[in-house]
Structure formats: structure tokens, C-alpha cells
């Protein structure tokens, strides 16, 4: 008799992520609304400053990070909201996979979701704010990826918590935004310098801090996640 091999943490995490992405791909509601929200916000922010006082290129980094912070909350909200209907989370909990792989799977799903939005938002930013494409934008995309990893790490955990409370929609931003603060500070400082044509070495302290944040919070949130589920 051969014993069936149990899949490892990352294999099962990928299964969870694929399930979430398949749901999203078939309905497309959250993705489209987050995408339209982001592009709409880019346009609104253009008109909140006077062009003759602050040029578009100068406000582009700030706009990018504000829009990213708020649009990511839309995707994160859905991450565990979708499990709450028909108690899908119970099915996940009784399946023979570890709690950590549920968290990692959810986080990977959110990461792909948010990255896909940025694939549209970054070119749209360059278009609306007249930024030069090329190397600086490639570096900015890298910074965005680093920031999104941190945002997803804490956001996925708080989404799991917020969904079980009385005011889920309001609580997620309240819990997440203070944790986004160091990410946004570091990323905005680095982006401003890169878009101003400064060498990357000048942004290095902030990028190092961003990477450290990602590492610390991916580990901490993976370990903390099992405590947020019902026992």
C-alpha cells in the first residue's frame, strides 16, 4: 500500500492562491472596480493642485503612493470577504492543509491581484503626468513590487481579522493604514529621488528599510495568522 504524499506548504499555498484567482478571473468584479478606482483617483489628483505651482512630474510620486495605498484596501477587503459567504473558510479549515499555507496562498493571490492593477496604473501615471518611460520607470516598478509585498503581508492578516468583526469595511483601513505608513514613507522617498533622475544609491537606505519591513512582516504575519482563525 502506498501512502499518498501530502503536498508541501508552498504547493498547497499555490492551490489556495489559484482558487482565489480563478474566482476573481471568472467574476472580475473586484479587479475591475479596483482598476477603475485607481485610474479615476489618478485623474482626480491631477486637478487638486495648481499646475503653475507644482508641476505634474513633481506630484506624480505622491499620487502614485496614495492611490496604491487606498486601492490595495479594495482588493484586501475581498480576500477574506469572499470566504465569509457560505462559510467557505470552514471548508478551507477542514481541508488537510496547514494554516500557514492558507495565509501564504491568500497573500500570493493578493500579491498577483495588486501587481496586475499596477501593471495598468504605472503606465497610466506616466501618461497622465508626462513622465519619461525607460529606466526610471523600471526602477519605480521594482519599488512598487517591494512595497506591495509589505502591504499584502499585513493587509492579508488584517483582512482575516476584520471580516469577523462588526464593522469589517471600516476596520480594515483603520488597522492597515498605520502599518502602511513606513512602507509609504520609504517608497515615496525612494520614488521621488529616482524620478528626479538621482542615482539609485541615494535611495538605498530607504530600499533597505523596505526590504527589512517585507522580511519581518512576512515572517511575523505568517506566524500570527493561525491565531486569527477559530480554534
Amino acid at each position, binding site marked *: 500500500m502506498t501512502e499518498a504524499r501530502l503536498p508541501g506548504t508552498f504547493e498547497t499555498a499555490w492551490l489556495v492562491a489559484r482558487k482565489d484567482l480563478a474566482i476573481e478571473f471568472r467574476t472580475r468584479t473586484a479587479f475591475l472596480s479596483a482598476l477603475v478606482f485607481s485610474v479615476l483617483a489618478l485623474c482626480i489628483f491631477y486637478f487638486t493642485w495648481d499646475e503653475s505651482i507644482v508641476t505634474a512630474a513633481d506630484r506624480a510620486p505622491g499620487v502614485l503612493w496614495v492611490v496604491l495605498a487606498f486601492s490595495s484596501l479594495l482588493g484586501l477587503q475581498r480576500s477574506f470577504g469572499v470566504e465569509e459567504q457560505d462559510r467557505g473558510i470552514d471548508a478551507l479549515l477542514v481541508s488537510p492543509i496547514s494554516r500557514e499555507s492558507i495565509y501564504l496562498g491568500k497573500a500570493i493571490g493578493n500579491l498577483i491581484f495588486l501587481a496586475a492593477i499596477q501593471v495598468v496604473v504605472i503606465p497610466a501615471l506616466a501618461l497622465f503626468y508626462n513622465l519619461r518611460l525607460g529606466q526610471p520607470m523600471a526602477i519605480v516598478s521594482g519599488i512598487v513590487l517591494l512595497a506591495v509585498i509589505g502591504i499584502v503581508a499585513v493587509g492579508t*492578516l488584517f483582512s482575516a*481579522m476584520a471580516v469577523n468583526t*462588526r464593522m469589517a469595511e471600516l476596520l480594515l483601513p483603520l488597522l492597515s493604514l498605520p502599518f502602511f505608513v*513606513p512602507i509609504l*514613507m520609504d517608497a515615496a522617498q525612494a520614488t521621488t529621488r529616482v524620478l528626479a533622475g538621482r542615482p539609485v544609491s541615494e535611495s538605498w537606505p*530607504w530600499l533597505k*528599510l523596505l526590504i527589512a519591513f517585507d522580511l519581518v512582516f512576512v515572517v511575523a504575519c505568517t506566524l500570527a495568522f493561525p*491565531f*486569527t482563525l477559530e480554534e
Partner: protein
Amino acid sequence: MTSVPLSARPARECKPLFGWLFALAVVAVIGVYIRAIYFTPLEALQGAAQKIFYLHLPAWLAAYIGVGITALMSIVYLWLHDERADRLAEASAEVALIFLTVGLTTGPLWGHAIWGTWWAWWDLRLTLTLFLWFVVAAYLILRGAAEDPAMRARYSAVLGILGALLIPFIHLSVYFSDARLHPMPVVLKPSAPSLPPEMLTTLLLAFGAFTLLCFALIRARYLLGERRDALAELEMERDL
């Protein structure tokens, strides 16, 4: 087991919320302010504005004691699952929020007189504490929004620990933006304190009085939490 009607049970003994510790703390705080106002010399450059430090600095100390206990008790709760740790974490967070608010209000008052500006974003401690205030507020709101007591305890413990991890990152992020407006340390520094002895004594007495006040308030809030839980238990029995 026959159930005894609630009215027939002997009343539980309740410790008063504000006991001798609170009375002692109030007397100490009043004493410190009489000394600070009437018996401590004016600072030569800052004048009367400097006196706010006898409120501002001790309030910070009390706030950090509260935040520290909350973070510590969050770890203890996840480890031992003891509801007393959860209650203590809650009590400390609430008291910390009060002292953080005192610190954040007195700081700008002094800043306006001496820096010439109410608020300075690039100042390390100011920005850090503002976000600490947000995290503590979120912690208390989360507690209010979670209905099941065991879930509330686990959720808030997780947030308490993550909040403690967040602080160094905000600290470093502001630190790298390098301008610093806060006065350099005058008491806790490698060389001897550079404060005149009368002022130093007043400040140290204020630290002592506020530490007492902080513990008295945490104790009162803890006892209140105990009563609230006992009441919830009785109500559940009644409804069964």
C-alpha cells in the same frame, strides 16, 4: 446541580476601583505641581514655557509604560491563554491612549512658543508618537468591534505584537529623513544631566508621581474589566 437564584447569592466582594494607590498618586501629582510652579526656578531662555515639561515628559513616560505592558501582555496571552493577561493589556492600552493624548497636546503648545510652529512632521519623536496613537486607537476599536471574548483577546494580542514590531520601522523611516527638531536629551545621556539640580529634582519627582498615577489608573481599569466580565457571565447564566 440545582441552580441558586441570582438574588439569593451572597454579593461578591468588590475592591473599590480607586483605592489607596490612586489617592497616593493624586497627592503626589498635586505636590509635584506645587513644587514645579512655586519652588522651581524659571528657565533663563524659555521662561515659563519650559514648565510644561513637568507635564509633557512624565506623560510620555506613563504612555510608554502603558504601551510596553500592552505589548508584553499580548505575548503572554498568546503563550498562556490567560484572560488576566488580556484584561491587563486592555487596561494598559486605554491608559496609554490618555497619556499619549496628553503628550500630543502639550507638545505643540510648547513647540509653538519655542520652535515657532505647532507641528513639525520631520521631528522624529513627534511623528512616531502620532502613529503610535493611531495604532493604540485601532487596538481599542478592534476590541470594541470583536464580539466573542476569546476571539477579541487573540486578535488584539496579534495586533499588540505587530504594533510593537512596527515602531522601529516608523522610527527609522523618519530618522533617515534626518532633520531633527526635538531638544537633545538633558537627563538620559552618557555624561551627567545638564539640568540645574532644582529642575532635575522636580522632573524626577514628576516622573515618580506619573508612574504612580499610571499604575493606579491601570489597576482601576483592570478591576473594571474584571467586573465587566463577571457581569457578562451572570447575564449569560440568567439567559440560559
